[in-house]
């Protein structure tokens, strides 16, 4: 029986099963993919639509219930002629959409609110929109955009002139599709005839297994095309991000090492692969005692990988001077231990994509952070040359490190290759959480020593990092942590040792900061403790020790340029002093139950891969018709790389940004610009994009036989070059169009940041530049309940030069929000918190107003002075919050997250000691 309803004011009919979720009917049956699915459980709000004008989660509505009713989706917000609504335009202008996956839900929730309340207060905005989660923006710019609709504030966004894009608040080049519902993410692009793949995952943390006979499944489910197993992998049944280590099986082969590991994949019709229950797939498990946490280090623990005795993946080490003996000369030595747990990326877009075999090539269209790495990984799984794989990235609905490792690729790649049919896959939220990588849990013990005058003497730390069942990015974490272990301070003597340890838990990989956020909790809590011991202001103590140009790091790298921590701290001095005084006044007048505190955190972070070559190559071409195109392989994961690359390339060439086209991501059309990780795209790819533009400009000037100061006017089919009174016209159709992608002229540039290997003592120059930052957090603690509310954050970050201040602010806001989550609420427990209602990420009401101070100490190797900000923004937030809790209560939190029960327990323990 068909169901009729009104969809965006027009009649719609569906023959879908009445119990089918409205969201699925809209997306899969009717093609309205503007409505996004983040969880299918009402936890994230991405699928919010209006039903008879009221917001509902369309993932929870049986389509039977919309019969004869009005459904409005994001596609229904713009006017019939495509003009954006005021709300959409405000989202676009304010940078309220970063990756854009939550944006349709946000817009619909706001639209519902405006139907009931034309002049909402901030609290009413948050109450109305609180059912939608955003992982990118920290909500600040969303609230600003909604408030702009209530009360326009006159901000004017103009397209910059030629040469003026750098530093301008340009609108996102891909911003409109993020607010009008046309942006295409990993789950939005598969052809209608694609088969579906569903992974059957290990329900056990550790087991051996045998596969049974699938004949009964095939008989019962004619739509089941094939069950894929390890035996079906044409090439190497293993992957991993390091060229020499491919330890994670595409399909488990006889044993599973974590709950959620891929065992087999069902491929067939949607009805079949989602109709089959996991328990009906014959897999016989023999359970083993799982190793959790650091149990793999215990005597007698079973060995998880033959290559790694004692379950230790690797050691990391940095030694400068003689920290242990120098520590004895310090006037004050503080020591403590710190613990953190698994943290989930929580991007609102679960992993998704589709694959097809095209002759001897395989094409995978997928949400990713790393097109070229994906390409090479998939190629060796299929057993074909790298060039035979094409990765076509979709818009990425958040990554934060979690979409660097392969997701759906192995299953859809193998299935499409073997079946020679298109195959699609979208992970459920539960799968995404169970199977994707996590932040490494850590346990760190550290000692910091200083003189009574406040000069740092020595730092000595050791830390273990749980890398889970497979290597993933474990080697990077064990190396990055000792390099950054001291924090952004000049320390004469340093010894820092790390181990990456295997466990029967979710692989720990890359997550915004690669271990540095964990290390920062240790170093900056100890900094607070030293300052208290010697009676020095916490900020002034850090300012005294802030590493400056001319000083050397723990690896002996002398900083020559762009080391702006001191400027960050100076910028924060006033808010710090005011907030500290206000908190102390509040506490003096308080009843003792509600107490406020203000804390400070500092960070540094090397931009680019540690001691490794990590080049980016960019092209800017001009075609015979005059079309100028930037070919950028720097994947935009919501952070805005599509826009920033255009800005620096346009300025390099000297063209108006809106006169230039962008081709992005596709490995057949763009050169390798590395991964969107390590805060490297603005710095490394940005430099390449700027130089590619400059290279093309140079070629044009040489063609015109004019000097560097000449100006170029870009016209249809021709260029007009002016130098003083001389004017030369280049007719582009006179030039041969045999250059890259059919262009007549192509500028090219490659940039690989200067870095040198680390020796056995961890000495060397691991990065071309470092980002610096400091944040002040003000909190309110309910002493009787242990709840912590962050009231305000002031964040100062040295970004070298802000390519686009709106986007830099957005990165800072989002980093603070994730740091807040790490500090207060986020802990992934395998098998227990595999959804977004047991695993908590900050909501509208949890992220405070954030004041951003952009410090620009230019980095000469970066594009127009710029360096990275993606990861730096998260790092100082947890220690700032922990410091604020201490200021409020006198209690030092040494375990993240500082959940209400842990804070309360610490307060009770402290009271017991008194």
């Amino acid at each position, binding site marked *: 029986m068909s169901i009729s309803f009104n969809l965006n004011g027009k009649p719609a009919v569906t023959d879908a099963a009445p119990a089918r979720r409205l969201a699925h009917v809209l997306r899969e049956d009717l093609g309205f993919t503007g409505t996004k699915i983040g969880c299918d459980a009402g936890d994230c709000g991405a699928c919010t639509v209006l039903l008879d004008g009221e917001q509902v989660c369309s993932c929870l*509505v049986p389509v039977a219930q919309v019969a004869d009713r009005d459904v409005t989706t994001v596609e229904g917000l713009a006017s019939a002629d495509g003009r954006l609504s005021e709300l959409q335009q405000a989202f676009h202008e304010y940078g309220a959409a970063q990756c854009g996956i939550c944006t349709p839900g946000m817009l619909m929730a706001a639209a519902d609110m405006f139907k009931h309340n034309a002049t909402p207060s901030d609290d009413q905005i*948050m109450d109305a929109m609180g059912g939608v989660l955003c992982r990118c923006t920290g909500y600040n710019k969303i609230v600003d955009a909604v408030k702009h609709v209530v009360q326009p504030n006159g901000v004017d966004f103009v397209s910059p002139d030629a040469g003026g894009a750098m530093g301008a608040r340009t609108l996102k080049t891909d911003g409109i599709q993020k607010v009008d519902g046309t942006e295409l993410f990993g789950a939005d692009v598969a052809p209608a005839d694609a088969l579906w793949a569903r992974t059957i995952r290990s329900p056990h943390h550790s087991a051996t297994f045998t596969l049974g006979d699938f004949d009964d499944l095939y008989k019962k489910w004619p739509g089941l095309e094939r069950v894929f197993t390890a035996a079906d992998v044409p090439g190497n049944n293993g992957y991993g991000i390091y060229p020499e280590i491919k330890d994670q099986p595409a399909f488990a082969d006889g044993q599973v090492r974590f709950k959620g590991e891929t065992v087999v994949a069902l491929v067939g019709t949607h009805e079949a692969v989602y109709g089959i229950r996991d328990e009906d797939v014959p897999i016989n498990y023999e359970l083993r005692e799982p190793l959790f946490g650091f149990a793999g280090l215990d005597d007698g623990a079973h060995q998880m990988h033959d290559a790694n005795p004692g379950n230790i993946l690797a050691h990391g080490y940095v030694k400068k001077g003689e920290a242990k003996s120098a520590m004895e000369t310090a006037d004050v030595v503080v020591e403590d231990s710190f613990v953190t747990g698994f943290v989930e990326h929580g991007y609102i877009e679960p992993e998704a994509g589709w694959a097809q075999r095209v002759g001897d090539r395989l094409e995978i269209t997928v949400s990713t952070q790393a097109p070229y790495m994906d390409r090479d990984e998939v190629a060796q799984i299929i057993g074909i040359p790298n060039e035979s794989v094409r990765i076509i990235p979709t818009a990425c609905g958040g990554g934060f490190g979690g979409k660097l490792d392969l997701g759906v690729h192995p299953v859809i790649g193998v299935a499409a290759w073997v079946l020679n049919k298109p195959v699609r896959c979208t992970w459920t939220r539960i*799968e995404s959480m169970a199977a994707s990588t996590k932040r490494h849990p850590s346990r760190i013990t550290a000692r910091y020593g200083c003189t009574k005058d406040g000069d740092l003497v020595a730092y000595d730390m050791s830390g273990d990092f749980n890398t889970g069942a497979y290597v993933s990015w474990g080697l990077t974490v064990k190396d990055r942590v000792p390099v950054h272990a001291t924090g952004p301070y000049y320390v004469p003597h340093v010894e820092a040792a790390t181990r990456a340890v295997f466990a029967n838990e979710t692989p720990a990989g890359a997550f915004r900061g690669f271990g540095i956020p964990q290390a920062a909790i240790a170093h900056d809590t100890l900094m607070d403790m030293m300052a208290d011991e010697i009676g020095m202001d916490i900020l002034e103590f850090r300012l005294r020790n802030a590493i400056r140009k001319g000083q050397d790091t723990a690896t002996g790298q002398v900083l020559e340029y762009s080391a702006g921590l001191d400027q960050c701290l100076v910028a924060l001095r006033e808010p710090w002093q005011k907030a500290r005084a206000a908190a102390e006044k509040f506490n003096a007048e308080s009843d003792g139950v509600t107490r406020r505190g203000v804390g400070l955190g500092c960070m540094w972070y090397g931009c680019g891969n540690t001691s490794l070559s990590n080049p980016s190559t960019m092209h800017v071409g001009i075609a015979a018709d005059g079309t100028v195109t930037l070919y950028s392989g720097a994947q935009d994961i919501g952070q805005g790389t599509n826009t920033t690359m255009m800005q620096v390339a346009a300025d390099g060439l000297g063209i108006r940004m809106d006169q230039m086209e962008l081709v992005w991501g596709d490995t057949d059309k763009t050169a390798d610009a590395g991964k969107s990780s390590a805060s490297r795209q603005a710095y490394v790819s940005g430099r390449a994009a700027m130089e590619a533009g400059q290279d093309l400009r140079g070629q044009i000037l040489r063609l015109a036989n004019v000097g560097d100061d000449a100006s170029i006017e870009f016209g249809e089919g021709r260029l007009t070059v002016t130098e003083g009174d001389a004017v030369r016209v280049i007719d582009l159709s006179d030039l041969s169009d045999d250059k890259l992608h059919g262009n007549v002229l192509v500028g090219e540039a490659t940039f690989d940041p200067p870095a040198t290997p680390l020796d056995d003592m961890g000495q060397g120059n691991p990065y071309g530049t470092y980002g610096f930052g400091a944040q002040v957090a003000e909190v309110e603690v309910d002493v009787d309940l*242990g709840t912590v509310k962050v009231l305000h954050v002031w964040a100062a970050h040295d970004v070298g030069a802000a390519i686009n201040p709106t986007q830099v602010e957005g990165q800072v806001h989002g980093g603070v929000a994730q740091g807040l989550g790490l500090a207060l609420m986020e802990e992934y427990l395998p098998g227990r918190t595999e959804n977004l*209602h047991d695993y908590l990420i900050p909501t509208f009401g949890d992220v405070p107003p954030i004041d951003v101070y952009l410090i620009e100490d230019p980095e000469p190797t970066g594009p127009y002075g710029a360096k990275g900000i993606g990861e730096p923004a998260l790092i100082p937030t947890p220690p700032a919050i922990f410091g604020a809790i201490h200021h409020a209560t006198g209690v030092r939190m040494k375990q993240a997250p500082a959940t209400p029960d842990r804070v309360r327990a610490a307060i009770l323990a402290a009271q017991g000691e008194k």
Partner: protein
Amino acid sequence: MSSYLRPTELDEALQALAAGDRIIVAGGTDFYPARVGKPVDEDILDVTAIDGLRRIEPRGDHFHIGATATWTDLIRADLPDWFRAMKQAAREVGGVQIQNAGTIIGNICNASPAADGVPGLVALDASVVLGSVSGEREVPITEFVLGNRKTARKPDEMVLGLNIPVCGTDAKSAFLKLGARKYLVISIVMVSAVLEKAADGTVERLRIAVGSCSEVAKRLTALEADLVGKPADGGLAALVTEDHIAPLSPIGDVRGSAEYRSDAALTLVRRAIAELTE
């Protein structure tokens, strides 16, 4: 092939239940989250089209909440002041999306220990009206919600609504929910309380229920009895002792330890009373 029935008449619904097992679906806010990535292949009875089941209205000595009334319906309903706690609970159920679709009756039928609606209904001595082809019966909510995901509903019955006895005109109620974030949060502890004062300003009747600290939200009857007759003023909250909380049997889980729950319950009970005696 599973069957999906969406009748407009109650009789049709009850007859369908008499004919065989069906899952009853209204707002879908608990039904679908339990089936992420899994087949939806049960026989379903969708009750949302049944005429007359969505009312929230006074009926003589009690108020009635119909089977398909949503949290938003409750928030918007014109109700006496002592419904404040229930309205507050409604505002803290999920986001507005969930409040617009989810029903109060669904919340009690789902019988989660952390059900936001249950403490308030327990404190108000609500009773549950069940119907089947053989007739109706009414049971106190404490005899309806029997345990974690367990109710007294028989397979051929559907819950038709809730009856809430009228409180004194100056009765006041309070609801406090403790969670680890602001929105979309499952409670660690919830407290709902209703205070009715005697003419002399003492406690005539005080009802307090605590949620998330036992399989089913629990009334603290010893505490209630101890406080009757005491002045309902700023000193009342201080009379709550740890012993009063002892009947609770919290468990430790991802949201908090058992010890923490007991400790927080004591604080929240005191605060709820303080709020009512301000």
